[in-house]
């Protein structure tokens, strides 16, 4: 049966009038019909969205919105002139396949309803309030830039760095390029047993011939070539069943050429029995550690270990209490660790310090105990304790029109698939709110036009995606000369100058 279109349109207008403009306080029946509102207008009203942060969270959230809302316009703002966040500055140089996701993100940025505005620092160059005026929805995806601190004496001595800073240093993050880390002693201690800790250990011990073919920053390559570090110990306050790294990274470490694992057999005795009923990922990971620690190496493996000049180890049930200074009081000479014992088991096991301590000699300490987010603006709610923006499925609590996704939403853990799902979840929350009327899109918004004027007044010059592509081309060309995939430009000024 067909209703003639003019009659159908008339009926729709009648219903739309009775449902009102979709305010969130309307009755459920009104809300049920708000989905029909579009029928009376030829296209869905435009949804202007501002995304703050151009890492995986920003791009995956953008992707979902662009795909499922045909009138959405998505502007991605980024503090640096270059996009992609941790994919560019966090993923290790020897993991180029993980960076393939940049191709998908590039496609998203090329979408005609998507724009990228680099070199704009939200909270400094433009305020959250100004963005709220210009956009229907604001999605915060600016990640976790801060480190959790140890809070122990000696944390500020020369030779003590956060793993994050060290990663930024070898990955060419502009603010870390002058780190000049202490690589003159034989032993480095990494506090923490996650994937970042393993990345740092691997970069410290990898043969230079392997590293020089990657996009590692040249200053880091040169410093590592001259490094005296031969032994890296990853120290964790809990036990083997609580390690946070994952199996792929552990396998890579075990197989790293020129190195030998230092695993204490007594840490692993009896463990095989305990893991029988654990979920598969934990079981396989623990089995690999047990094998590396207890199994007699094959002939080939034994040869490989005998020829190794470097070593790496895992130390469990040790918690740092003090970083011990050298005689002149300026640099780290060692670390004092309290022996701990576990209370409880599995993921929720807690480490409790005992009276016993142990001292480890070392000249480099890297703290890899987790990241934290900063609050971006006083007007945005922030949970200081958890270090995240309080939210429900990506809707910022007590802040209509404000959403979040990625690490700033759920905490700084997980891999690309976790952030992808997370970004989609937040996008769905936005789309639901549009459809249910709790996000009001009836008034049109100025979007970037409004922001552009303000930025100009303040002397801020945004970098467009095509300008990033020019920077990209310069980096790739420079890299080719050195046999690398790219040579990253290290300074914000250099990046901006790299395109006319």
């Amino acid at each position, binding site marked *: 049966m067909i209703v003639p279109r003019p009659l159908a349109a008339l009926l729709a207008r009648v219903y739309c009038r*009775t449902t009102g403009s979709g305010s969130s306080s309307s009755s459920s029946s009104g809300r049920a019909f708000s989905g*029909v509102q579009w029928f009376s207008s030829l296209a869905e009203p435009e949804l202007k969205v501002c995304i703050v942060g151009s890492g995986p969270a920003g791009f995956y959230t953008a992707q979902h919105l662009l795909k499922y809302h045909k009138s959405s316009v998505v502007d991605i703002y980024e503090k640096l002139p270059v996009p992609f966040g941790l994919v560019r500055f966090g993923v290790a140089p020897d993991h180029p396949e993980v960076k393939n996701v940049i191709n998908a993100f590039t*496609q998203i940025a090329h979408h005609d309803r998507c724009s990228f505005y680099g070199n704009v620092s939200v909270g400094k160059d433009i305020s959250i309030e100004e963005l709220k005026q210009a956009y229907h929805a604001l999605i915060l995806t600016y990640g976790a830039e801060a480190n959790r601190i140890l809070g122990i004496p000696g944390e500020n001595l020369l030779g003590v760095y956060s793993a994050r800073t060290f990663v930024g240093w070898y990955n060419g993050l502009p603010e870390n390029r002058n780190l000049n880390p202490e690589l003159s002693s034989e032993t480095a201690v990494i506090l923490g047993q996650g994937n970042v800790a393993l990345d740092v250990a691997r970069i410290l011990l990898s043969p230079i011939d392997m590293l020089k073919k990657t996009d590692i920053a040249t200053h880091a390559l040169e410093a590592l070539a001259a490094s005296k570090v031969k032994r890296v110990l990853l120290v964790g306050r809990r036990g083997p069943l609580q390690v946070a790294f994952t199996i792929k990274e552990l396998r890579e470490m075990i197989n790293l050429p020129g190195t030998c694992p230092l695993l204490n057999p007594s840490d692993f005795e009896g463990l095989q029995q305990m893991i029988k009923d654990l979920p598969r990922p934990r079981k396989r990971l623990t089995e690999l550690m047990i094998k590396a620690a207890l199994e007699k190496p094959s002939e080939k493996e034994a040869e490989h270990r005998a020829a190794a000049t470097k070593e790496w180890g895992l130390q469990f049930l040790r918690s740092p209490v003090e970083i011990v200074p050298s005689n002149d009081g300026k640099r780290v000479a060692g670390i004092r660790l309290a022996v701990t014992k576990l209370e409880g088991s599995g993921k929720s096991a807690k480490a409790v310090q005992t009276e016993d301590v142990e001292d480890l000699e070392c000249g480099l300490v890297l703290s890899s105990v987790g990241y934290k987010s900063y609050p971006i603006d006083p007007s945005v709610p922030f949970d200081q304790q958890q270090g995240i923006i309080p939210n429900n499925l990506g809707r910022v609590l007590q802040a209509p029109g404000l959403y979040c996704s990625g690490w700033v939403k759920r905490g700084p853990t997980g891999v690309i698939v*976790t952030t992808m799902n997370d970004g989609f979840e937040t996008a769905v929350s936005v789309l*639901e709110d549009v459809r249910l009327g709790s996000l009001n899109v009836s008034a049109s918004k100025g979007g970037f036009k409004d922001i552009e004027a303000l930025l100009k007044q303040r002397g801020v010059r945004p970098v467009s995606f095509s300008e990033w592509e020019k920077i990209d081309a310069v980096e790739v060309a420079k890299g080719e000369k050195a046999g690398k995939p790219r040579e990253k430009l290290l300074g914000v000024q250099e990046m901006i100058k790299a395109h006319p």
Partner: protein
Amino acid sequence: MAAARRCCSFALRAARPRRRARGPGAASVPLVTQGAQAARSGKSFIHLLNSTQLLVRLASLDARVTGELTDSRPQRDIGQSPAESGDHLCLFPDVRQCEDSSQKPESLTDVVNVTFIDRSGRKIPVKGKVGDNVLYLAHENGIDLEGACEASLACSTCHVYVNEEHFDKLPEAVEREEDMLDMAPVLQLNSRLGCQIILTKELEGMELTLPKITRNFYVDGHVPKPH
């Protein structure tokens, strides 16, 4: 019903030339329920309930045809040139998704029919051919399967569940695939990475289910019933 759909499609295309026609798909919004809810509310238009239901059903049809709101899963363009699909999100650089894809198998003996089951439970039959990589086959058919690392075993975004009968026919996963599967959310015994499944004649009839992502996730834009 098909006549109505075509009629609607024609009328809409006249009005909105940029919109793409879509194939049939189940409307995921329970419209009859919405009509019934309106009835219970006691509003003055109740006497037009039958027309309301018709209108709303027509609206959902409209949505199916235009791809707005209820069913915006990107599908192969039907009868529309690539130039018109300006706001279609071309996500996959290596795959000719935007063109009227003529990935027809060379001969009948090459054909492998598989079914994808998307995140809302919808079954999508797909004609693949021997040698096809399931991840890229999904992309060619507009299925929402991400492949962040581009089939290099460095992520688990192409995680799928394989139906039991065909799961056993797949060659065993290499260690590197198992390692990446360990990272996949909601891992099941029949989990595999789509980028590691290559079609053979033996896999005729295979069903590949996309894992549900989160409790909030309705990929086709379904709006949950208001309480």
